[in-house]
């Protein structure tokens, strides 16, 4: 198992090299020249040239890439063209917001998705099943930004129950330790900040969770329906154990194995930044920020973010596979060759 994990981590290297080359080229081929955007339309030829030289944009592309990748290996992702801040700082300032939102969303989505999915399967064709499937249908078909706006209008605008903007009341902002406000506020022992953080999370997390929840609900239902038809479930019933135990102990463990993969993939994509959700809720995360950087041709930031997201995506998948092997004894990764 350990061998397998090591191998998978080594396999990360070609993936990251490939991904970095692709972003690097795409940015340089398709993005507008950053110099006039950074310096303004009226910058002199001389100033533009000097700026290009200073930022290494006059070097041949392979050299630019080489510089980028050697920098990245030592943890130096360059500086933003605009803020002149190190890219790593820019990312750290925003990524925790994205992770916090994504984790809360995936927890919500998994909890409700599995719950509704399992009950729908066990009570197939009942009213509960029909309502559950309707919710799932709405979940997959409703655009997130639209759902977000509806939630804001209802719970923030009309009812004034929940905030719709940002991560926390600026007055309550805790000292940044981890960048996760739920944790930072607890470290600071500030319960008001903690509650405020949770309240700010409710609406964006709900909007973001809806789609994933719908997917998880559907997959859980069909996986459980399939599992409940299996011969070993009949064997379990034949043992004379209660139906509840048959479902909890025999069906659930088997039925949820494929769901782990689904949740992992969904989490991976949520961590990539939920651009629309972040925009609608003015969430200071990485997704909306990256889009602005792409539009402004801020090459170092975009490259850094993409590299980071690719790494996280691969790591999440690795963790999913490890959990998978743990849940399903039939899988022996040590025997799978690299």
């Amino acid at each position, binding site marked *: 198992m350990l061998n397998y994990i090591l191998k998978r981590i080594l396999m990360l290297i070609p993936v990251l090299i490939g991904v970095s080359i692709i972003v690097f080229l795409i940015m340089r081929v398709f993005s507008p020249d950053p110099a006039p955007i950074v310096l303004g339309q009226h910058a002199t030829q001389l100033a533009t040239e000097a700026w290009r030289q200073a930022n290494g944009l006059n070097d041949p592309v392979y050299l630019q890439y080489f510089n980028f990748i050697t920098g990245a290996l030592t943890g130096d992702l360059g500086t933003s063209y605009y803020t002149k801040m190190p890219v790593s700082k820019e990312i750290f300032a925003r990524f925790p917001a994205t992770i916090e939102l994504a984790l809360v969303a995936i927890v919500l989505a998994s909890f409700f998705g599995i719950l509704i999915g399992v009950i729908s399967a066990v009570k197939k064709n009942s009213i509960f099943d029909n309502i559950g499937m309707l919710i799932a249908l709405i979940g997959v078909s409703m655009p997130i930004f639209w759902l977000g706006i509806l939630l804001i209008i209802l719970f923030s605008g009309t009812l004034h129950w929940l905030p719709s903007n940002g991560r926390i009341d600026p007055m309550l902002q805790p000292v940044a330790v981890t960048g996760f406000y739920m944790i930072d506020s607890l470290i600071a022992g500030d319960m008001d900040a903690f509650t405020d953080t949770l309240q700010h999370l409710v609406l964006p997390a709900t909007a973001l969770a809806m789609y994933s929840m719908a997917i998880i609900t559907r997959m859980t239902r069909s996986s459980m329906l399939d599992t409940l038809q299996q*011969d070993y479930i009949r*064997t379990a019933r*034949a*043992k*004379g154990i209660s139906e509840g135990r048959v479902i909890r102990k025999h069906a659930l463990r088997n039925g949820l194995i494929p769901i782990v993969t689904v949740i992992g993939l969904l989490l991976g994509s949520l961590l990539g930044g939920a651009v629309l959700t972040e925009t609608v809720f003015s969430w200071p995360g990485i997704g909306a920020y990256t889009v602005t950087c792409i539009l402004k041709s801020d090459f170092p930031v975009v490259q850094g973010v993409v590299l980071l997201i690719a790494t996280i995506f691969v790591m999440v998948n690795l963790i999913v596979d490890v959990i998978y092997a743990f849940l399903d*004894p039939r899988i022996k990764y040590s025997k799978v060759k690299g």
Partner: protein
Amino acid sequence: MLMEVKALSTEFKLKRGTVRAVDDISFTIDEGEILAIVGESGSGKSVTALSIMGLLQNPGRIAGGEILFKSQDLNKLSQKELQKIRGNRISMIFQEPMTSLNPVWRIKDQIMESIMTHMKVSQKEALARTIEMLDTVGIPSPAERANDYPHQMSGGMRQRVMTAMALSCGPDLLIADEPTTALDVTIQAQILELLYRMREKFGMAVLLITHDLGVVSEAADRVIVMYCGKIVEEADVKSLFARPLHPYTVGLLQSIPQIDDESDEPLYMIKGMVPNPLRMPRGCPFSDRCDRCLERCSQEMPKLQDVDGHKVRCFLYDVVSEGGHAQNE
């Protein structure tokens, strides 16, 4: 008498119509007896077993009849009361050894679950009993193999595990639904041998379901031949093999491969196919395949009646009775 099934009928309500998979069958099983149910695929053998176990799944349901186990009608019990009997007094081995064990549970846990559900024993005692049972059913180094997952075992070994599990609470009746069908011929013989040995050792009655009359001759005391959900013949095993009465039984017997058969003649096969359960022939269900079909066969349903110590459902023997044998139904 351990079990008495009276006029049991089981139906599946489908969109296209209602399938009566088991139609008015009655039989008894004595303590320690091996009763075989034989019939082609689709004749309702498994449905009979599942009806007894109370394991029918939607849309299947018992449409009528009684299943008296030690004089208690299982069909009238609640699921909760049935659970106390299932896996405990009556247990079952299934047709599909490869898929009948939970793939993510160690086999010891699966057997221990059975024991701990029905017997008041500690974890440790349950484990000891599990290993003892695995040993009894002929699993080498049972203490180690107990830690295996099902996928680490062959089909024959898994069927042994199933048998150990089914026998772990010392049932009065073991239902073995085609326990050897999915296995190699040599393994088949071993599993049958095992069942026989277990009956000797534990003295439980066995309801042995099979489509292979060859299996029956070696193991069973009494045989029921089923066709299209109905009993067409019932007799003790010696007399059934010596003198089969029903044309269907005759056909089944002729289609058993003979090991000492030197001739090159192809094996006999009953012509035609089992009728679609939604479009049964009007009279005798076997009439469209029967070599000796009479005129009335396709009009009326023959009744099950006693003939020479057999029970048989065929008009050929009606004629005999009219000829003076004085047979009453």
